[in-house]
């Protein structure tokens, strides 16, 4: 079970240009992160706290394959995303960069500011503000291990180092 984090709620079809605006793509990641989600909620980037949870509607992360869309959220301290559904490439990028993405039919029941914790292995989301629990698609153990390691590259690095040590 994750620590409890505050929900930031967004609508459907939040695209990669909203998450990582093209205008700032050439600059450093820190600048890009300052403008993350700015066009739909200018209060988000300046106020989001480490451990806060993003909650959204359908097709979250639709658009380009830019991995910076996940990296910006990660830099801001977001480690968990809950959405009705995720765009395909974004979903892969999210887990590959060590961020938990949970597809949840009931995402729409979560209100801004609700205190949320998740259990990705069991596929459970708890809303401590309302006392509700929601089901989500669970993440299998080996993917969770990758996420906990920090992402795909870090996970492979660890596995390869272990193999070397075993030899």
């Amino acid at each position, binding site marked *: 079970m994750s620590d409890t984090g505050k929900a930031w709620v967004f609508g459907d079809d939040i695209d990669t240009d909203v998450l990582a605006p093209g205008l700032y793509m050439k600059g450093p990641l820190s600048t890009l992160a300052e403008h993350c989600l700015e066009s739909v909620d200018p209060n988000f980037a300046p106020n989001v706290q480490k451990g806060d949870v993003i909650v959204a509607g359908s097709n979250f992360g639709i658009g380009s394959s830019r991995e910076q869309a996940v990296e910006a959220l990660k830099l801001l301290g977001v480690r968990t995303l809950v959405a009705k559904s*995720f*765009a395909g490439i974004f*979903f892969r990028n999210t887990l590959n960069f060590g961020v938990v993405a949970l597809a949840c039919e009931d995402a729409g029941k979560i209100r801004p500011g609700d205190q949320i914790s998740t259990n990705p292995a069991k596929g459970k989301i708890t809303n401590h503000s309302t006392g509700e629990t929601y089901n989500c698609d669970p993440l299998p153990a080996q993917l969770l291990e990758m996420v906990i390691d920090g*992402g795909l590259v870090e996970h492979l690095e660890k596995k390869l180092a272990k193999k070397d040590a075993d030899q």
Partner: protein
Amino acid sequence: MGSTLAEKIIAKAAGRESVKPGDFVTCDVDLAMMHDSGGPRRVNPILTRLGTKVWDPDKVVVITDHFVPPVDAMSAAILDMTRKWVVENGIDNFYDMQGICHVVLPERGHLSPGMFVVGGDSHSPTGGAFGCFMFGVGATDMAGVLVTGHTWVKTPGTMRVDINGDLGVGVSAKDIILHLCARIGMGGAEYQVVEYTGDTVANLPMTERMTLSNMAAELGAQAGLIAADETTSAYIRAAGGDAGDPAQWQSDADATYLATHAVDAAALTPYVAAPHSPANSAPVDEHKGVVVHQAYIGACTGAKLEDLHMAASVLKGHKVSNQTRLLLAPASTRITAAAAADGTLAALTEAGAILMPSGCGACAGYGAGILAEDEVCISSTARNFQGRMGAVSSKVYLGSPYTVAASAIAGHITDPREFLNGGMA
């Protein structure tokens, strides 16, 4: 309960009896395809960081197409780096400047029904026309595949698109998929598999099936599958590949689909997508008369041999308007050779088409043929996002090769049936 074709391929790759939508599995990758833009230059830093090499060089195909031929020192350096990387990594399946990856891959016999394939490009669903589960991945995912030979997948559900009836004169697979883009919407099949079925599909040649699978990407689909049949086997055998066992790779009659969309092919007219989205598609009549400064026949979507035949059938005996220009970039060098041998190239160039190298060219704005501010182009490519083909204020309309050719003759968007025998007058 039966399985869809996609579920069967994923289950096999995962070493399971069966999988269902939502299941996370780890799959063995049968083939990994990369191009010069998203390939070695992006994955090599990760492989270097991990201090490791490619898991199985025989299962990797590298194709240069985005920066060919190089137009500046930067693109030349990218190609140079790519060539050195394939040598260092022992990759024999390397096609340098031979054409666009999604067309070259099956043309050289690399695809067989039932394969689980990853491609470092968003139009990787094209491979689904051969009954493969092929999907696009980013650089991090690709590096993971190159190191381990496998990748994780969340099994997608399948949407069926059942297409029946005879296509009319001057109407093609491109018109079917543009119609679907308007109907289902960009992202309407997000993270789903689109499986095309029906007698129209069964009667289409492989190149036309590839157009349907290719633009499944525009629907947001992970893959765009068409079950293999005799047409598939014949194509693969001619390409020197392994036709495998098509009977094994079919959806079960009682498979579960997320949705089924029926398309009446006989009722379709030529379609055109207005800027800046393929979903802005409508029958050509709605855009008739829009002046075009450039007509472009190119890309993995719209410059295969049959695409060139379509364009030639319209252009034969006509001239490109002196108000516009027609650029022709056949999708591969083999297509150029075949079109030269069968007289298609002569028909096109005599009409005034300007022959360009085989590669992505103007499609994504990397190569030659890009647009100035406010210029308008009608194109046989897959995407018309703002600024993709050049200046930010340029505008791209998408149409079939027939429609692009007809518009080139008229200098404005035109219904190709006006130029085709048996069509409306």
